[in-house]
Structures are given as C-alpha cells and as structure tokens.
C-alpha cells in the first residue's frame, strides 16, 4: 500500500497511470449519464406536484453535489500539499478549482431555470441553497484569482492553499448563516428531493446521474492534473524525453 502511494506520488508514474485510468472513468461516467438522462427524461413519471419540471433535478442535484465535492477535494489536497509538501497534491488542488467553478455555475443556472416555473422568478433570495452556491462560486473565483496573481508556482500553491483552508472552515458557516437568514424570510423553498419517500423509478436515474457526474469529475480532474504535472515538471528529464524525444535520440 505504502509503496503504491509512494509510486503514485512520483510524477512520471502518475502521468502514465492517469492516462490509463481516464478512459475507464470516462466510459463509466458516459454509461451512467446516458442511462440517467434517458431514464430521467423519458421513463420516470412526472412528479405529481412539479410535473415535468422536476426532471431538471437530474442535472441540478449532481452538479450541486459536485460543486461541493470539488471544494472538499481542493481543500483537502491543499492541506496535504501544505503540511507534507507534496507537489502532486498542489497540482490536484489547482486542477479541482476550475472544475468546481464550472459545476457551481451549472448548479446555479439549472437551479435558476428550475426555479422559474416553480417560484415565478429566475432568482429567489429566499432559497438558501442557491444563495450558498452563489457565494461558493465567489470563493472559487477568489481562489483562482489569487493563483493567477502569483507568478511563482510554488508560492502560488502555498498561498492559495492557505486560502482554500480558510474557505473550508468558512463554507459550513456560510451555509448555516444563509439558512438561518432565509428561515426568517419565510420565502418559498423547494420541496426536498431524496429521502426514502421518493419512488425507485425516479430515484435510480438520480443516483446514476450523481455517480456518473462523480466519475466524470474524476476523469476531468485526472486530465487537468496531468497537464499541471507536465508543466510543473518541465525541467525534468522525463518530461523532456516525453515531449522532445529527438533530443536524446
């Protein structure tokens, strides 16, 4: 186990291994998302209250899940990179941020599209989940802006890691405070999805979509980390050999 981890953290091994793993994750996610989309759009019966508009949850909920998962992945790997000075962990954090921002954006837009027929407005401040998603998007922007503002990669890694950890402490607090705030507001909230009450015909596509999105995230993340590793290791012998084999030939 330990030697496996050690091997994994060595950049050339990671670079090759990730290349081999990406197709599997991509294929898995493709299958699950295809099943989830078809089943969610065409086979699941319409919700008795929200009618066919509820089908948006099959893309909204997985996107919202991922937006938070990406932050956790980012903060945890930033912490690992900061404490154990593992360069690969910093590369993971750097790769997770833009993906997290994209999925947060997606969760916001699909949530808003869902809200339009439900609430009659595109944006409802009374919904705590959408509001926290918006703040989460700003947190991602801040993280990426800080990274972009620092030229030296090692310094950017460590500075943004501090920010990610501070953000990780704050995210639950933000969520809690937004919830408290909207509970006073008495605004319309969405009917909770999930729980054992939901019918299996409706639930299975949702679970498939969530899992499919997660696999997709892993595949995308591995791809981005490969790019990061390639760039960060640009002076090393293995990268030179890889990108310009003629030099050694």
């Amino acid at each position: 186990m330990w030697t496996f981890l050690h091997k994994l953290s060595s950049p050339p091994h990671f670079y090759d291994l990730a290349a081999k793993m990406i197709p599997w994750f991509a294929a898995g996610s493709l299958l699950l998302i295809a099943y989830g989309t078809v089943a969610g759009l065409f086979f699941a019966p319409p919700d008795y209250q929200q009618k066919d508009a509820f089908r948006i949850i099959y893309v909204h909920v997985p996107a919202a899940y991922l937006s938070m998962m990406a932050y956790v992945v980012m903060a945890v790997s930033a912490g690992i990179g900061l404490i154990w000075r593992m360069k690969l962990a910093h590369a993971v954090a750097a790769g997770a941020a833009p993906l997290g921002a994209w999925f947060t954006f997606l969760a916001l837009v699909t949530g808003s599209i869902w809200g339009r027929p439900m609430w009659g407005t595109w944006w409802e401040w009374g919904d705590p989940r959408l509001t926290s998603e918006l703040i989460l998007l700003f947190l991602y922007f801040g993280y990426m802006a800080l990274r972009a503002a620092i030229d030296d990669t090692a310094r950017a890694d460590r500075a943004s890691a501090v920010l990610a950890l501070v953000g990780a402490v704050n995210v639950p607090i933000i969520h809690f405070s937004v919830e408290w705030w909207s509970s006073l507001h008495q605004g319309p909230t969405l009917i909770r999805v999930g729980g054992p009450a939901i019918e299996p015909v409706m639930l299975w596509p949702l679970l498939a979509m969530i899992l499919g999105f997660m696999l997709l995230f892993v595949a995308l993340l591995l791809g981005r980390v490969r790019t990061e590793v390639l760039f960060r290791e640009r002076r090393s012998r293995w990268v030179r050999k890889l990108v310009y084999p003629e030099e050694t030939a």
Partner: protein
Amino acid sequence: MSDREPELPGLLDGLVCVIRRDLHLAWRRPGDVLNPLFFFAIVSTLFPLAVGPDAEQLALNGPGVLWVAALLAALLSLNSLFLNDYEDGTLEQLLLSPQPLPLLALAKAIAHWLVSGLPLVLVSPLVAMSFQMPARSTAVTMLTLTLGTVSLSLLGSIGAALTVGLNRGNALLSLLVLPLAMPVLIFGARTVSLAAAGDATSAGVYFLGAYCMLALTLAPFATAAALRISNE
C-alpha cells in the same frame, strides 16, 4: 557573548509593542483613521439621498446599509495593513524577530480594529439615528458592529497577508475577503433589523460572538502562515 542564550522580552511585550507602534503611526497620519470614517459617513449620507427621505423605508433598510457601509469601510483600510510594513522592510524585521509570528499578526489585526473598526462603532449611533432607526436598537447595533468589525479585521488580515506585494492586490483583496465575510454581514444586518423591529436578538449576537472567537483563535495562525509565504 555568543554562548549564553539571549534573554527575550516577554510574549505580551511584542504584542503590546506592535499595537502601540501602529497606534502611534496612525496618530502621526490621521488620514488613515479618518478616511474609512469619512467613507462610512458619506455612504450613509448617499443612501437617504438615493432612496428618498421616506422615514419608514429608511428605517427598514437602514441596518443593511449600515452594515454594508461598515464592511466596505473596513475593507478600504485593509490593503495598507501589511503593505506599508512590507515596503519599508519592517515586515521583514517582524518576521525575523524572536517573537511568535501569530501573536504579532494578532497585534496587527487588533491595531487595525482600534484604528478603523472602533471609530465606526462609535459613530454608528449617529448614522442609525439619521436613518430613523428606533433608539432601542442602538445597543444591539453597537454590540453587533463591535463583534462584526473585530471579525472583519481578523479575517481581512488573512487576505491582506496573502495579497501583500502583489500587483493589483487591492481588488484581489476584496474578492478574497468579501465572500468570507458574508456570514458576518448576514447575521449583523439581520440582528440589527430584528432589534429595530423589537424582536429577540440573542441568536444573532451569540452567533457573532462565536464567530468572533473562532476568528480570534484561528485567523492569526492563517495570517502568520500567509505572511511567511508572501515574503519568500
């Protein structure tokens, strides 16, 4: 002389020393203290002018405006928190002093609050009065603003430490700090509104107190780590 370990000044000496120096500097350049205060006052004047003199509406929106103005005023002075020290090299001397850095970071945040946060708290009753907010909410306004501005100074010191020495650090600083400051804004403004309406306010005050304590214990360490990284 080289063999014996030099005797160090006590831990609190360093803390007090930094606070005293920053206050002294603020005294020499009163503009640093007055600018955020004027900003706060001007925003508070703009609001009634923009919204109209309707007393009811002013009283309703007053807490929110008061808090947003306080947040932006605190942010205004954050950029220079470490920048001046960075530019004249005193930050380097602080980093290389035998004092624990988190303690010095805490001292900087305390000094920042004394110079920019405390005056805001003191003038807030005047602003609240001009917004036609009921007198019963004055105590709660001042209490929540105190807890809130302390948290903001601490939270902001992390952002200031991360952006010190960067190009366009000022705009970046707002982008980093504002989302993190959201809970303070939410609880602060809502609690003041509740107080103005005559409702129970203890939940908000407790939350702000807890948040302030959390910031007080964790932020100095984050600031210290950020300062070391920024000064590489």
